[in-house]
């Protein structure tokens, strides 16, 4: 619990990172009508997919920063050495990534949806799919951050490593939202969330040990 509080305090005292990733998402969404068409009839069917892709990208982009500080000042090493179970540390890091990156986007989703001329019921399904799907993104992003922390080109490398793993989440999430809550996709997305939640923190813990011995 103390660990989670620490992460949240760090975030609250320097909210620039979270604000930046949110600004990035809003800006990218604003670029699409400019690049494609301002016509609401053509934008509306793209909305769910675009917001999902932007969420995925902003999670990937923010991931390497979420560990870089801890790695540079040695706190990551201390966390690995500490009494806390390492998987718990990794899970907390993932939660912090989610709170700083996915949660603001989730709260902004109605506004982003309105920018893309989405009707309210589709926005609701979009938010539901993000609630289930974005934690999976954060868990995988933390794995990628741990794999690349301390490497030279980590910010470019991380999306290459992790993006293929996010394909199922992207497919299930967008399908669930566009079909208006087709139960099959919802169940599968929930199953994927459960599976990621019980496996990825442990995988990240294995990688964390490798990362600090680098």
């Amino acid at each position, binding site marked *: 619990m103390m660990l989670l509080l620490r992460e949240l305090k760090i975030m609250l005292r320097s909210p620039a990172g979270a604000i930046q990733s949110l600004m990035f998402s809003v800006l990218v969404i604003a670029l699409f009508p400019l690049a494609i068409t301002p016509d609401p009839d053509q934008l509306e069917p793209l909305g769910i997919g675009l917001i999902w892709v932007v969420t995925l990208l902003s999670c990937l982009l923010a991931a390497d920063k979420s560990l870089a500080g801890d790695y540079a000042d040695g706190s990551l090493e201390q966390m690995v050495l500490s009494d806390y179970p390492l998987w718990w540390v990794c899970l907390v890091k993932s939660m912090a990534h989610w709170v700083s990156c996915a949660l603001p986007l989730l709260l902004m989703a109605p506004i982003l949806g309105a920018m893309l001329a989405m009707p309210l019921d589709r926005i609701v399904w979009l938010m539901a799919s993000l609630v289930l799907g974005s934690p999976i993104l954060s868990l995988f992003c933390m794995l990628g951050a741990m794999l690349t922390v301390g*490497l030279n080109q980590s910010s470019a490398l991380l999306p290459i*490593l992790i993006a293929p*793993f996010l394909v199922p989440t992207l497919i299930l999430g967008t399908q669930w939202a566009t079909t208006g809550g087709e139960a099959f996709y919802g169940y*599968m997305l929930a199953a994927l969330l459960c599976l990621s939640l019980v496996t990825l923190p442990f995988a990240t813990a294995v990688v964390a040990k490798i990362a600090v011995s680098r």
Partner: protein
Amino acid sequence: MWRWFHQWGSPKFFYHRSGALIPVLALASGLILGAGVFWGLLIAPADYQQGESVRIMYVHVPAAILAQSSYAMMAVMALISLIWRLKIADAAVQTVAPIGACITLLALATGSLWGKPMWGTYWVWDARLTSTLILFFLFAGVLALRNAAGQSQTAGRAASVLAVIGLLNLPIIKYSVDWWFTLHQPASFTLTDRPAMPFSMWGPLLMMVVGFYAWFFLAWLIRLRHELVKREIRSDWVQQMMKQ
């Protein structure tokens, strides 16, 4: 069993013993591939629907099969290197990744060349094409991590973890792409529901598959032996070999 395992796990033993395999594999892959190409491209009949373009199959199908199984082999090697810390398994992961990536690229390229006369387009977002593309990205990820992290042992372990997680995710990716595809597009064409092939077609196909595997193991073995010498350059057995 364990004794065998330890012996072959030693780079020195492996290097000296595996040398004898190279001519065997080279001969086998040369003969089988040559005969398969001759049989498939010149003798086998043209398909009554697809015409001569069906001959792309004799390269495409072996490449696609090999692409998937080379990822599986890489991941198994990665698991072995993570569990038993065998140096040779780590070298095997490193050397098979570029071969696998090239084979996957070959499968994608031949597939899209085949797609042009068959489906009228070089690329469709078909479930198989998409999952093969993702497979290529998985290979690319392992390679990229390896390149960025350098030659150290920890770099190898990180790449191995990535490869193993990729293998566990492969079925999830494959099924999710299938579900996505079935919803998006009607199955206007399927590769699976073809009428059963006559022997004159699956004969050369099987031959090409076997030839591809023989060539794959040959390329892997040559790269692996080279990598072992590079890694063990300071050890006695390499120094002795260099003097001779």
